[in-house]
């Protein structure tokens, strides 16, 4: 570990916010030094309660995150917020606007907010987000909220491995419920009908309840995801939501599911890291100096098929690791 990384790591443990910010950047950029830092930080993390917030754009995730953060601050807890917004697949740029909804938190040193572009290279988001969670965890944040746009498998992967996953919806058209159907019904521990002062809110809540009841395994599930109505802009329902999150945490602790979730998260983390490693090794094997070059020529000449070639490359990659 280079001098600068050691310094940052020490400063982080001493509570230096800029060191935390710098380390997060290193993790986001996939800086090799960040891996060493994360290795060191691992033993300091594991204390925070991690909350995922997902839901379609405009459903009020940032405003709810702000409301929850204010609530937790009043309880004397420190808060970290990771707000993920999409990166353009065409330019690689991103406009990250979640802070606009969190202005009143910016003067509070007990809240650390970081905006992240989804970047989207090779499932990197999940790895980077986990890294950022670990940094904020080791930094001593009691509650960490991860906010993502509820679209795309990678982002679902991100919230799946939080302790409590909030799925946020709002009244207005069947589209909201349609959007929820696409895979995130299964991952929600708590469902929120935000903007519930709008017309159609009871209907949205009822639709949600029906969908949850018909969810496979719902009857036997020990945790029944509650549906909480909120008006985040006015702060209505935030106390109830925080209480539901608290109940879920208690349920996780008492049922032994907390450990299970932690193991799951570790598994997801190590799997992502592994698949990145293997992916990179495979790319290297296919470059002009790698053993793939010869195989590619033979494939082009129709002497060998891609499956056989892949087997040979896999054999080359994993030689000595098996048997």
């Amino acid at each position: 570990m280079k001098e600068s990384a050691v310094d940052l790591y020490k400063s982080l443990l001493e509570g230096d916010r800029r060191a935390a910010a710098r380390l997060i950047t290193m993790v986001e950029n996939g800086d090799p030094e960040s891996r060493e830092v994360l290795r060191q930080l691992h033993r300091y993390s594991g204390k925070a309660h991690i909350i995922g917030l997902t839901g379609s754009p405009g459903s009020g995730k940032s405003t709810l995150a702000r409301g929850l953060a204010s609530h937790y601050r009043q309880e004397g807890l420190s808060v970290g917020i990771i707000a993920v917004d999409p990166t353009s697949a065409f330019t690689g740029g991103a406009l990250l606007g979640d802070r606009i909804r969190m202005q009143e938190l910016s003067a509070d040193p007990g809240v650390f907010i970081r905006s992240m572009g989804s970047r989207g290279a090779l499932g990197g988001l999940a790895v980077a987000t986990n890294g950022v969670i670990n940094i904020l965890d080791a930094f001593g944040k009691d509650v960490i909220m991860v906010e993502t746009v509820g679209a795309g498998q990678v982002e679902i992967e991100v919230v799946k491995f939080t302790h409590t996953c909030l799925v946020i919806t709002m009244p207005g058209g069947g589209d909201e419920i349609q959007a929820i159907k696409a895979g995130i019904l299964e991952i929600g521990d708590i469902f929120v009908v935000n903007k519930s002062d709008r017309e159609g809110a009871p209907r949205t809540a009822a639709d949600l309840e029906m969908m949850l009841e018909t969810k496979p395994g719902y009857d036997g599930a020990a945790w029944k995801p509650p549906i909480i109505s909120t008006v985040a802009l006015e702060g209505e329902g935030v106390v109830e939501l925080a209480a539901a999150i608290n109940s879920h945490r208690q349920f996780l602790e008492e049922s032994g599911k907390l450990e299970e979730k932690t193991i799951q998260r570790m598994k997801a983390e190590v799997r992502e890291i592994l698949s990145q490693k293997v992916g990179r090794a495979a790319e290297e094997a296919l470059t002009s100096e790698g053993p793939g070059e010869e195989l590619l020529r033979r494939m082009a000449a129709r002497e060998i098929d891609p499956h056989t070639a892949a087997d040979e490359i896999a054999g080359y990659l994993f030689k000595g690791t098996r048997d």
Partner: protein
Amino acid sequence: MERKIRVLLGKPGLDGHDRGILIVGHALRDAGMEVVYSGLKQTPEDLVEAALQEDVDVLVLSILSGAHLALIPRVMELLREREATDILVLLGGVIPPDDAGVMVREHGVAKVFGPGTDTRDIVAYISERKGSR
């Protein structure tokens, strides 16, 4: 290792006009940068804290209220206090030419981009100054 230039767009003071800075933001985004916007009516303290948490390379400020002589020195002072003078500070909006000179010479603003600036010039300036950290 992929690094991106990170930028915070800031609206210090009380004017409510962010059309201009958002156009700049779109141009920077389209040039592949990660652009954070924290909204209107920010104090210098808010902006410097946000710039540090977001670990930005560039802080782009827009002021149309005429309060730049009060707000900019404070922003720069806070950046110095927090040992964050490596952050490139750009200023836009309605800044009289004489004041623009003062901002750069006396307070450490890197450059002032006035009305009518081609956004490509801003992109080029940032890329040149922060392209390889």
